[in-house]
């Protein structure tokens, strides 16, 4: 079990390695973190990643949540066709839909740039949000919504005052997981990225083929710590919500 986390630990330890090659341990240093902040290309790729992820998660949260709420009221046939379309990107190898999306965006008259990567990411982000929200909706007592409607609230008001607050934890969980997936995407991103829209995983992939520097380990370590921080915050928020 601990073997699962071994490579993560190794990256963090070696980001403090004085030696320039990854192989030998040459003493403790924080110097790589300093040189990292001078490496524009690496930092730009992180900025691109953050932009793509924020765009993808925002679009996915809106579409996934409303999709799940809307689908819950539809007949079996509509529900099934949505499920088929939603789960296809999760079941198929990512490279297939990546190929399709590349062909699709190449055929478009305008250059989508970074938006193309974000839109591609929504295809695998929406499912996570959709699944979590659908599960939560099933547990929601329909009498609550009827009560709100009987008391004179419109469809909009019912949604924002009754449905949304009760599905919010599910939306948050889905959003966090899809953000992690989007930040991690190598396949889709490397197919759709242009020289000016390279994301961190794509840069890391090309560096790994020629040999990485400890700077990369330092950046990876920072990202690992940031992700664990996010998870801790998410966990904490859910705890607080429960205790209220």
């Amino acid at each position, binding site marked *: 079990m601990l073997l699962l986390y071994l490579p993560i630990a190794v990256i963090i330890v070696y980001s403090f390695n004085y030696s320039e090659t990854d192989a030998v341990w040459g003493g403790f240093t924080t110097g790589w973190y300093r040189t990292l902040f001078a490496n524009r290309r690496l930092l730009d790729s992180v900025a691109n990643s953050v932009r793509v992820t924020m765009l993808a998660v925002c679009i996915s949260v809106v579409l996934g949540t409303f999709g799940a709420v809307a689908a819950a009221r539809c007949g079996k046939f509509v529900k099934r066709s949505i499920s088929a379309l939603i789960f296809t990107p999760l079941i198929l190898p990512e490279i297939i839909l990546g190929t*399709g999306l590349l062909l699709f965006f*190449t055929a478009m008259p305008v250059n989508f740039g970074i938006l193309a990567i974000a839109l591609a990411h929504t295809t695998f982000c929406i499912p996570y949000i959709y699944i979590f929200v659908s599960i939560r909706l099933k547990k929601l007592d329909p009498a609550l919504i009827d009560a709100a409607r009987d008391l004179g609230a419109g469809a909009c008001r019912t949604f924002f005052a009754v449905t949304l607050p009760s599905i919010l934890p599910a939306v948050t969980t889905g959003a966090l997981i899809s953000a992690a997936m989007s930040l991690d995407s190598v396949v889709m991103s490397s197919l759709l990225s242009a020289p000016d829209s390279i994301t961190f995983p794509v840069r890391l992939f090309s560096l790994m083929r020629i040999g990485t520097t400890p700077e990369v380990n330092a950046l990876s370590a920072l*990202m690992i710590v940031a992700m664990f921080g996010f998870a801790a915050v998410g966990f904490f928020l859910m705890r607080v919500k429960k205790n209220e």
Partner: protein
Amino acid sequence: MFDRLKAFLTVLPILLYLITLVGVPLVFIAVISFLSRDDHGRILFAFTTVNYNRIFDPVILSIFRESLIVASLASTGTFLIGAPFAFFVASLKRRSQNVVILFALFVFWTSSLIRTNGWMIILQTNGILNRFLMLIGLSDGTTRYLFNLPATVFVTVYMFLPFMILPIYVAAESIAPTLRDAARDLGAGHIRTFLQVTLPLCKDGILAGFALVFIPVTGLFFISDTIGGGLRMTLGNLLHSQMAGHGNNHPFGAALAMILLIFSVIIVSFFLFLPRSRRKKQVDGR
């Protein structure tokens, strides 16, 4: 009737969105795989089956074989390690089960590429593994652990282990303990109970695990490109190089994606949907 129309109208945005970004691109693959291209790599609207004929080129066929070997070894490897682990977790107390499963899934929270890079540091010549083995006298320090098939399979197994553990665990966990007790009361030993009660009831979970590992591995390229050193091509590498790399032949790439798509659909229906519908029939028949 009016209500149903209203419900359909609210569901329309997501439906259109998914059709545009999931359905249409798949249609693009199907259409472009039958088109040709000019000398500059631009797509020409002229029907051809040349992209599919190229697949029977011995070089391409060997790449297909290579992918199948990697995917079979990786899914067998994850099964051999993941299945015992899943059964072990299912036998734990409820609370520890949740902790262990959460721990196993939490590793996904870190980028898979970063973890692959971690393994590169561990496995490289003069790396941690080699030094450790030298220390206990098992290696003379010259063995290469990177850039070969075993290393690729090993890291692939590592990466996809949770996909095998989870469905088997879910299946094993949902077996009523009374069934096992009944078998034991009827005189079956531990091994016989496992083989005749637990294992058959987990069949769907095991099949799902195989599908969840096998399918993505056939389209994977970054592990064989880095850990494998890019020396042996898999279908994922070939497709990636046709679409984004120097090979750059979009119609041929589309044909490869089409083959991969058909292959995945076959595996999915055999391993995921068939067992489910059969079980449904059994339940309905009762």
